[in-house]
């Protein structure tokens, strides 16, 4: 029988694996529906370990809103660690959902959320364990339709071989539209089989179906054309944009896991989208325009969410949370509601701005003032102009002085290495900045036991950004610049000991680079490296650069392309990019102009507060920035 639990067979294996609780489900607010009460059934996957996947906001939103619908059933599945994978293979147990332990292969749809490209090999493991053919072309009528979503779905070409469909942009309305199309197709008696369903998805515009596009290549390896190969299939597929966040107040009652996970808090997205225009930031480019959630909805969601979960921390999420038009009132209102309780509030992703210290002070009324995080991203003034991060060194120094002066003891600063036009001096400049931070901080705080941590990652150029044409810096140069920075930091005996430096080697970024800007030929690399045993590539203890290089070398042998070709090669305006037929709303001409401006250090203002600069999204998508203020306040639902 379809949808039957495999738990009886799984259970005897669990005592022999690490952290078995991650596989048993039973979380607070988990939903288990009768298999037969639904005519459309989704398995939702986050392709990483449970501890990372469970808190994922996107999966939780879709899980909740699908299960609220009559006749729809959604369950979750996560990547199993290699110890359980081996035991499952030995005992013939398929990839299962954690809700009712049903075989993933029994569902109508398998929705996979890719927030990072390094989850691709985990998709292959799950498909293989589920008994779903790895290549979409080999799938039959009863295999689930594999739908990719998340930010990486804006260029799904590297996984085009393995997925049936990709959804660009916000998922809330899209999953419901897909659900209705699947329901109608099943009710009609599944006309024209799998192809019939995929054609309905494609022609409705709800999803991109890679199989319905032919890609041809030039002799030098570049793409020649991408052409629809079925009548009625659109030339370009557009992203989805939810226009009223107050109508979609999810998650209302998020899952509360028994296992420990990476985020143990109730998170509410206070707005979606960002128009700051940081040129490296794919999230900021593909989620435009800005859509604020109203202060009253934020207040209601937080109070209901905390009551429903018992979480002691509330995260006010967005790409730049302090930019909400009523953030001061939100912070004060929530701090008032939770004053004297065990609930603490946090505001991740803050810009370098003294106002943010004031906010953090407000939010930390119940807690300790331990650490604040800022993201200058570039070490030198010139570099920050290139990436359009309009922060001067004086801004930063003033901000951290305020922070230390207000009792904060540690400041963490995020940077990137390998940005376009970057020189060794731009990276080494970070050390001087950190020294000034400590020096100013000691003066402001009147004490010496302060910390400044520099966290620095390798820059990966991403599709749909002005840097999509840029050459990625090779990993040897990244490592050399980071070594030079480290030497410069510790050289100063007076401040060096107060400064921590956190970085990773540059090699995983190169693989991420290939997967980010790759085309369909990269599918062969993913398949090869997975067959050679690659799993959990986002985890340094599992990631093997050598295995990826070997797979790329083998797959690209005899072709004009290579790992370098996809990563360290600069593209020009005339090149057809693998994602050109996927419409994020951004005008390619504007992106190119912004890329040219980057090279010359020209800055772009935020269009929330200055005139439109024609990035193309609003007219193209029929959307506009939605920002307050509303003038209202956070109201407590009940006295606390």
């Amino acid at each position, binding site marked *: 029988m379809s949808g039957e639990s495999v*738990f009886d067979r799984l*259970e*005897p*294996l*669990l*005592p*022999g694996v690490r*952290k*078995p*609780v991650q*596989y*048993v*489900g*039973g*979380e*607070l607010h988990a939903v288990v529906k009768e298999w037969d009460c639904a005519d459309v059934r989704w398995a939702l996957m986050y392709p990483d370990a449970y501890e990372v996947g469970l808190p994922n906001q996107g999966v939780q939103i879709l899980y909740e809103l699908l299960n609220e619908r009559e006749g729809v059933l959604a369950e979750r599945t996560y990547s199993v660690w290699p110890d359980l994978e081996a035991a499952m293979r030995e005992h013939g147990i398929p990839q299962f959902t954690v809700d009712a332990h049903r075989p993933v292969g029994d569902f109508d749809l398998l929705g996979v959320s890719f927030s990072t490209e390094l989850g691709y090999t985990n998709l292959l493991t799950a498909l293989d364990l589920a008994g779903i053919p790895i290549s979409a072309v080999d799938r039959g009528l009863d295999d689930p339709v594999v739908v990719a979503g998340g930010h990486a779905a804006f260029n799904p070409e590297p996984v085009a071989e393995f997925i049936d469909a990709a959804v660009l942009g916000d998922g809330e309305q899209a999953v419901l539209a897909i659900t209705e199309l699947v329901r109608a197709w099943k009710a009609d008696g599944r006309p024209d089989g799998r192809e019939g369903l995929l054609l309905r998805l494609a022609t409705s515009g709800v999803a991109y179906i890679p199989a319905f596009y032919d890609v041809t290549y030039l002799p030098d390896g570049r793409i020649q054309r991408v052409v629809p190969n079925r009548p009625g299939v659109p030339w370009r597929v557009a992203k989805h944009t939810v226009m009223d966040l107050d109508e979609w107040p999810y998650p209302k009652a998020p899952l*509360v896991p*028994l*296992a*420990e996970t990476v985020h*143990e808090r109730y998170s509410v997205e206070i707005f979606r989208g960002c128009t700051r225009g940081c040129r490296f930031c794919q999230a900021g480019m593909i989620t435009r325009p800005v859509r604020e959630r109203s202060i009253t909805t934020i207040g209601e969601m937080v109070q209901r969410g905390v*009551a*429903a*979960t*018992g*979480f*002691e921390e509330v995260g006010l999420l967005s790409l730049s949370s302090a930019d909400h038009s009523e953030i001061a009132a939100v912070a004060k209102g929530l701090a008032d509601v939770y004053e*004297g309780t*065990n609930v603490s509030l946090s505001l991740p992703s803050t810009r370098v701005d003294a106002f943010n210290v004031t906010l953090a002070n407000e939010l930390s009324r119940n807690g*300790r003032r331990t650490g604040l995080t800022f993201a200058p991203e570039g070490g030198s003034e010139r570099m920050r102009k290139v990436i359009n991060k309009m922060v001067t060194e004086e801004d930063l120094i003033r901000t951290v002085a305020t922070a230390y002066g207000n009792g904060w003891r540690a400041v963490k600063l995020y940077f990137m290495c390998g940005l376009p036009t970057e020189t060794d001096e731009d990276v080494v400049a970070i050390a001087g900045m950190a020294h000034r931070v400590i020096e100013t901080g000691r003066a402001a705080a009147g*004490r010496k036991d302060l910390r400044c941590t520099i966290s620095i990652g390798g820059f990966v150029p991403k599709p749909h950004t002005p840097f999509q044409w840029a050459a990625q810096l090779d990993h040897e140069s990244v490592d050399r610049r980071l070594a030079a920075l480290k030497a410069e930091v510790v050289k100063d005996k007076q401040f060096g000991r107060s400064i921590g430096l956190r970085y990773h080697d540059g090699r995983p970024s190169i693989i991420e680079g290939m997967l980010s800007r790759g085309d369909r030929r990269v599918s062969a690399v993913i398949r090869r490296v997975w067959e050679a045993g690659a799993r959990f590539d986002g985890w340094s203890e599992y990631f093997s650069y050598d295995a990826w290089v070997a797979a790329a070398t083998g797959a690209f042998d005899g072709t004009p392309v290579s790992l370098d070709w996809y990563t360290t090669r600069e593209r020009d305006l005339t090149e057809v990019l693998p994602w050109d037929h996927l419409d994020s709303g951004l005008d390619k001409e504007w992106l190119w102009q912004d890329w040219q401006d980057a090279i010359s250090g020209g800055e772009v203002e935020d269009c929330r507060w200055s005139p439109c600069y024609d990035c193309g999204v609003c007219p193209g998508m029929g959307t506009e920035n939605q920002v307050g203020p509303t003038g209202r306040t956070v109201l407590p639902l009940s006295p606390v």
Partner: protein
Amino acid sequence: MSRQPEGPPPPPVVQRMRVRYTKRGRLRFTSHRDFARAFERAIHRAGVPIAFSAGFSPHPKVSYAGAAPTGVASEAEYLEIGLAETRTPESVRDDLDAALPPGLDVVEVVEVVPGGPSLADHIEASWWRIVLPGVDQAAAETAFAAFMAQDSIVVDRPTKDGVKPVDARASVVSGGVVAAASGAGEPGCATLDVVVRHAIPAVRPDDVMTALRRAAGLSTPVTPVVTRLAQGLLDAAPPLDGRRLIDPLK
């Protein structure tokens, strides 16, 4: 300059409760840390007026008696909580049980009489029930008799830092194979009860199983399912059948 926590000190403990809870079914795979986190969240959801410790990072006043190993079910886990306002044991039991997921069930709550012995003083042994699918009753009986006939059986327990020797026999007070007629056993599935005195290092049911396999030749084709049925003081009243433990909440 020493820093002081802001605000007034937290309200004091005015009442203590002892709680018996279970780990049933698939939730037996929760580790103790997992349970503790879930329990503290349940307290907040249930609105139980838990008291907090003073200091920079206040902790809820919850103290746990030794927890069953991850993967072992239990009908008898114990903890004690301190409340900042008085409540009836019944309301605390109902509120906590409703706030915890099914399987982690709060079954009994009693108020602590001030000045009496601590919870730990009420617990010296555990009664474990080990269900052995694929093992027939006679084989289990033979193996257990061979096990009891020895004074000491040292087994290697795998730990994070390598193997550690544990005497799996010395702490076993009594035990036996449960008669099939009692309804606990079925053909080809023996049920073994053991009463184990708590000691340092603690002897766990899987140490006993290792000893039965190694020293008494028992073979277990399927992973045994273990449940802690009770904890308490050993009942010294003769005859000592060893399966009777004095309920720590009575």
